[in-house]
């Protein structure tokens, strides 16, 4: 069930019986029809072990299950919303940026260290993303939030993209990311250009960048 963008800050989703979707708790603005909202203590899919995993990983955003028959409008905090359609690949996104996603998507938690070892952990700390990030895999749509508009930059072999860690929103596809530093003596004496750390993304896929350096 795809999301329909009403304007840049609201999306509408159609809910049909037998299919459920997840959304951030409290993000419902209005609905039509018979729709039930159930707080999801587990914070997503995957049973008890996944819940413990998310709690430990600090990726546990309060989610609710949306079921029934009707249409639901979502929005949160006046943030811009961007809808990403997944066709079998994996989206990497911070849990607190997730607004809503199809129940058909497989949700997981990924340890940053598993992609890039120790540097992955360092990267997580520097970017403020923490040591874990949320993954969504499968076929379906995801609505993510960002401060300011979102631009999508394609990544292709030989066309690496560098992103300011604070403006990074999400990425999907076969993408390797590593933290590249451009620290010189200027940074050491407090005369840096403010661009000392960058996320270097290579492979094939796409990265989503917001027009702001503010976290949500």
């Amino acid at each position, binding site marked *: 069930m795809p999301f329909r963008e009403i304007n840049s800050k609201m999306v509408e989703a159609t809910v049909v019986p037998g299919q459920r979707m997840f959304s951030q708790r409290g993000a419902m603005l209005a609905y039509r029809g018979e729709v039930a909202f159930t707080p999801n203590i587990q914070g997503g899919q995957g049973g008890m072990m996944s819940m413990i995993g998310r709690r430990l990983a600090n990726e546990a955003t309060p989610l609710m299950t949306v079921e029934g028959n009707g249409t639901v409008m979502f929005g949160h905090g006046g943030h811009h919303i961007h809808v990403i359609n997944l066709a079998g690949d994996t989206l990497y996104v911070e849990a607190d940026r997730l607004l809503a996603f199809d129940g058909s998507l497989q949700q997981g938690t990924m340890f940053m260290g598993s992609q890039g070892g120790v540097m992955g952990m360092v990267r997580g700390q520097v970017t403020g993303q923490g040591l874990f990030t949320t993954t969504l895999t499968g076929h379906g749509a995801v609505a993510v939030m960002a*401060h*300011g*508009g979102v*631009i999508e*930059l394609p990544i292709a072999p030989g*066309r*690496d*993209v*560098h*992103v*300011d860690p604070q*403006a990074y929103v999400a990425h999907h596809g076969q993408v390797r990311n590593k933290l590249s530093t*451009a620290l010189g003596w*200027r940074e050491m004496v407090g*005369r*840096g*250009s*403010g*661009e000392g750390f960058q996320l270097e993304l290579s492979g094939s896929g796409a*990265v989503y*960048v*917001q*027009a*702001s*350096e*503010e976290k949500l």
Partner: protein
Amino acid sequence: MFRLEGSKTLAVDLTGDAVKAKNGSMVAYEGQMAFKKMTGGGEGLRGMVTRRLTGESMAVMQVTGQGTCYFADRASEINLVSLHGDKLYVEASNLLCTDAGLRTGTTFTGLRGGATGNGLFTTTVEGTGQAAIMSDGTAVVLRVSAQYPLFVDPGAYIAHQGSLQQHFQSGVNFRTLIGEGSGESFQIRFEGEGLVYVQPSERNTIGGNV
């Protein structure tokens, strides 16, 4: 080459040349880029001292390289300004990016600054090239001609270009003094020929509070 990617992100295509941008405003880039802070806004020692003294200090970095660089700052709307040898007056905090070929400097604005909350000095950009200025909300560009002077709320003014004289005027009366002012006690009057950029939002100003 400046172009807008949406209304809040500026994309600059570089082929070995350079641009000056607000420090830390890069959000992403493709290709090879180097970022270097320009101490004192890149105007030499005299410029640096002037900026320190006038409170118009701006942290500027020089970006050089091959590829496309994307700039954005706190989700502000971005407006492109083309300069053909004329002069753009803009607040340092509203200036996002300029061609490296453009000269920047500081100038005295007169009484206006005190009430706009901008200080008594403003930044000038002159030469031929492109500049990107930021506004809170989509800015409108208003044309001023000899017969039609323009009055602007000091808190909503962001920039102007062309040969304009600006006068500061106040509508302070007894109502203002007893605290029943309309909040529009001060205006800037622009006369001459040129363009004024106005944002649909007001900064906190002394003028707006009385």
